[in-house]
């Protein structure tokens, strides 16, 4: 029997369509729903005002992350509004029978870190959360994307959302990455090439040997930032790396169920000859350590280069100039040597163990630059424990750094971890928007290696200069 070649995306999407509406969206069944304290309270209010129940409470998982302090988590949360949101999540979860990992729970952490590390995220699933970085879970060959609060209410009440099917894009990166080039550089490079809106309307499949050779942590970093080029999500076909990561995790299938699942997961790949609406091909050898210089993630470049002139940058000149003015940068400036005040390593983009290993590889045997304030924030308690178990904490401590407690922290600065106005941060997070890390804060996005190099030198530094031959 011959079959029509099908993409990974189509295989997963089509198997979840409950109903197709003519000239309208598809009704899509959702396998896993993550909720957190910020985007869920109004959805629960909506349920109550309509008199609706949660349809499948076992398919929703709650964790507190956006609004949590990263020090003294054993004490009551000081900010009354934050405390109120955390309480609402706990109360709503208890009321509807939803699993809740609140502050202090050993499984607590950033939603996109704890889902995979506990085996909740699996290949072939549809996964949503009221958070745009839900695209992270696409690293497992799942269709995962962020939704609004109205849609959170839909999933709670009907386990479905209504979505027009996106177009399909494939981005291939082949070749060998150079020394000091990590997954964050790969994705910042792709976004710089496509721009912050270049994949809007599309769902992306990342393919090619760079991704095949990447760890799950690295794949999560890449898929996490799919939204930063406008894509609804990004995904990577599951393979032996994926299966090895999942096997044995708490909520992963076991025994006979594992065998059944594995047989299905092995079918989850794009068939030879399947069609995409748009394809890009990049060469790994062209990728340098990356850094952003502007106020959207598409404004990134190789760290050794100069900020493009407005004419080369494309888009509106006024918007470009507004962006550089906010950053206090000028066209044609080089980035190397620019002063840095703050370094943040963490977030759903780079808050996993591999990221802290990379950071430690640079700071080992060096000292934190005196004027630098560094916030080192693990993505979860499990990551925090790994940092301790692997001796990374000792390296950090010797170099003058302190480890904080898990949470979203300075990525969006909802808690007290705010970069002061006018200060420069090298951040391993995902957004350099105006005010993202605090009102007036100036963010340069980069990899954990670039962040580490800045943390020990106090200025923007090419990490390759600090790496052993």
């Amino acid at each position, binding site marked *: 029997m011959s079959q029509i070649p099908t993409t990974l995306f189509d295989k997963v999407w089509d198997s979840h369509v*409950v*109903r197709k509406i003519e*000239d*309208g*969206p598809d009704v899509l*069944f959702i396998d896993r729903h993550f909720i957190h304290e910020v*985007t869920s*309270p*109004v959805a629960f*209010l*909506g349920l109550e005002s*309509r008199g*609706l129940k949660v*349809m499948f409470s076992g398919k929703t998982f709650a964790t507190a992350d*956006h*609004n949590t302090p990263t020090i003294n988590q054993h004490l009551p949360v000081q*900010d009354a*509004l934050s405390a*109120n*949101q955390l309480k609402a999540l706990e109360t709503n979860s208890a009321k509807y029978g939803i699993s809740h990992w609140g502050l202090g729970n050993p499984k607590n952490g950033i939603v996109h870190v704890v889902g995979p590390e506990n085996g909740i995220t699996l290949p*072939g699933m549809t996964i949503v959360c009221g*958070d*745009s970085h839900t695209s992270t879970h696409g690293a497992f060959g799942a269709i995962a994307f*962020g*939704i*609004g*609060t*109205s*849609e959170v*209410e*839909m999933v709670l*009440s*009907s*386990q*479905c959302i*209504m979505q*027009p099917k*996106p177009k399909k894009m494939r981005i291939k990166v082949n070749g060998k990455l150079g020394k000091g080039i990590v997954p964050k550089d790969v994705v910042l490079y792709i976004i710089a090439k496509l721009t*912050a*809106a270049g994949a*809007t*309307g599309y769902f992306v499949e990342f393919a090619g040997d760079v991704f095949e050779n990447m760890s799950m942590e690295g794949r999560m970093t890449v898929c996490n930032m799919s939204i930063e080029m*406008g894509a*609804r999500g990004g995904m990577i076909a599951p393979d032996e790396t994926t299966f090895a990561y999942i096997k044995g995790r708490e909520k992963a299938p076991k025994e006979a169920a594992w065998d059944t699942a594995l047989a*299905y997961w092995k079918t989850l790949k794009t068939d030879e000859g399947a069609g995409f609406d748009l394809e890009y091909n990049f060469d790994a050898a062209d990728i340098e350590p990356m850094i952003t210089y502007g106020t*959207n993630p598409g404004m990134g470049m190789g760290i050794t280069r100069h900020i493009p002139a407005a004419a080369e940058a494309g*888009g*509106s000149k*006024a*918007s470009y100039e*507004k962006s550089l003015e906010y950053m206090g940068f000028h066209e044609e400036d080089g980035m190397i040597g620019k002063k840095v005040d703050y370094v943040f390593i963490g977030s759903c983009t780079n808050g996993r163990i591999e990221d802290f290993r990379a950071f430690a590889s640079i700071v080992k045997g060096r000292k934190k630059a005196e004027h630098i304030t560094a916030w080192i924030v693990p993505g979860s308690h499990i990551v925090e424990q790994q940092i301790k178990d692997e001796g990374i904490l000792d390296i950090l401590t010797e170099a003058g750094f302190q480890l904080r407690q898990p949470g979203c922290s300075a990525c*969006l600065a*909802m808690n007290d971890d705010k970069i002061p*106005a006018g200060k420069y941060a090298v951040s391993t997070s995902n*957004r350099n*928007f*105006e*005010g993202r890390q605090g*009102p*007036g804060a100036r963010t340069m996005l980069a990899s954990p290696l670039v962040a580490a190099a800045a943390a020990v030198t106090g200025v923007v530094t090419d990490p390759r200069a600090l790496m052993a031959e």
Partner: protein
Amino acid sequence: MAYDKFTVLKSSAVPMPIENVDTDQIIPARFLKATERTGFGDNLFRDWRYNTDGSQKRDFVLNNPIYSGKILVGGRNFGSGSSREHAAWAIYDYGFRCVVSSFFADIFKNNSLNIGILPVQVSAVFLDKIFTAIEANPAAELEVNLPEQKITILTTGESESFDINTYKKHNMTNGYDDIDYLQAMKSEIQLFAEKSMY
């Protein structure tokens, strides 16, 4: 019925010719701490609109009394970034019912439609015509006609058609939302769920 019906809207418009207006600008994260859906309009474009001491920034368009209306006209890639529906709530709460741009970020567009704001995507050329018309006359009105899927600059008579799928158009013109629709197909969803491997 989840929100007000939208049929024909005739209004002056507020011009914001900035590209990549992300949802962190529309409503910064520190204002997302409410557990109810009220009052977000006060903090719409907070850091572009107010100085740190709470005084108004005089050069920001929302603080310029010559511009007003229920239509916000933004530059390309409007609503990018965070999925926070609070951004759409803030725009609605401030008094806008329609946002016009040459390109919208996906999640913002969905969120808007889900709460009764109509996102109208026009060509880059037509967007420029709107900005020019408002520059010539800040009181220039636009007419957004959803049944006919047409937007007209009333001072110049220029118009362009816009896309919206039949399902969403029906919802907007009747004030229905997706939750109403999904509740009506619960038994079909139940059957589907029973076959699901997860």
